[in-house]
């Protein structure tokens, strides 16, 4: 079974047209991966579908680097 990071990497790589290797835990979504505000909204929709969870606006605003997404997803999973 793929890890959370692997699944997040796959989605980001496809959405933002970047190589999987570029999607490191430290990578900034907006700066390193070149996502604009619309890409981020689009990405969040895909993440919600992939992991079957809901990311509210407050949580979405806190997402800056890939690690933030992985941590959020893992925390949600631990709570359920």
């Amino acid at each position, binding site marked *: 079974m793929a890890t959370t990071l692997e699944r997040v990497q796959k989605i980001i790589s496809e959405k933002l047209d970047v190589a999987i290797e570029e999607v490191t835990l430290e990578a900034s979504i907006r700066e390193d991966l070149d996502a604009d505000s*619309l890409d981020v*909204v689009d990405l969040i929709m895909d993440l919600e579908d992939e992991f079957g969870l809901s990311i509210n606006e407050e949580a979405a605003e806190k997402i800056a680097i890939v690690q933030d997404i992985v941590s959020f997803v893992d925390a949600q999973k631990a709570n359920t």
Partner: protein
Amino acid sequence: MKRRVVVTGLGALTPIGNEVVTFWNNLIAGKSGLGYITRFDATDYSTRIAAEVKDFDPLLYIDKKEVRRTDLFVQYAIAAAKMALQDAGIQIDDQNAERIGVYIGSGIGGLPTLESQHTVLMEKGPKRVSPFFIPMMIGNMASGLVSIHTGAKGPNSSSVTACASGTNSIGEAFRLIQHGDADVMVCGGTESTITPMAFAGFSSMGALSRNNDDPQRASRPFDKERDGFVMGEGSGVIILESLERAKARGARIYAEMIGYGMSADAFHLTSPAPDGNGAARSMLAAVSNAGLELTEVDYINAHGTSTPLNDLYETIAIKRAFGDHAYQLSVSSIKSMIGHLLGAAGGIEAITSVLALYHQILPPTTNLEHPDPECDLDYVPNEMRKASVRTAISNSFGFGGHNATIAFKVYEDV
């Protein structure tokens, strides 16, 4: 004093060629781009034929991420605009960017996106509608994204006048250069609406040909057996440039743009006015704006949609405008080969008019097999013709009663 304006670049994406040279060669050879619809399952539709662009690769012009964020009509416009700029040999940089503008019209905009996102809304609810839905759909986005992808920072707008959008956009761009607002305009039309909703809607209007058994003969402007238009798609973009700038850089000049006119029928939602009054006044306005005598017009690139009404009323309008000279000039409709590209039609037909002057060749009206006694002009039937052509005008008429005409002539260094 108005400045002179010339055409220095051409870019096209059409059902008979994904660049201008192939398009023109196929056009004068009388080749048809019509066939069965492949974009969606049209089994249940009364019309199952269209003129699709074939083998288009957007990655030649934009990256994968941008492809995902743009509708086809925008991708077509970016492709045509980049080809036109390259053809003109114009590099946009910090020094010239603010004097180079974009004016590319679309009659309908991103209908494919509208339809797919509406399905998302119905099936998954409002929270799954893409944040790219609106910017992908709105019709001005061709001009917007062409500026983003080329760096053109001058005047930027688009006309939305249904099937006259491309011609109006070129006309407006022409004036911007004449009046000194810009030195170069990247202008024309783009459209891509081979979708279920478009075919359902146009079919309900009774506007489309139902000649499903013989697609390549379905578009037959001015022929007695015409029964409607065949929808095409693509983009046609030309580079207009002030004569001064073009001469200073030693540019190749295809032709001079000399006039623009428009009018409204003030008559009906979709039918052209039966007396040809609106269309005639549009032609007369362009001829007058160009400073031409009526007898100086050699060629009319007709709107010629292949609908029973348009072709009859356009013929009446040409006679009304030109009197006896209507029988001296030549008229042709390339929609017989590429279908009706709606908002892109004016762009492709401007390219055709310009190349007719440049090569001294009139493209034919194909499928003209059964003369209609009421359509009795010279439509250059079935075979292209070498001819001495000094001036050409191009007509486009849109639902709502918009009429637009632009005029070109052979460039002479005087």
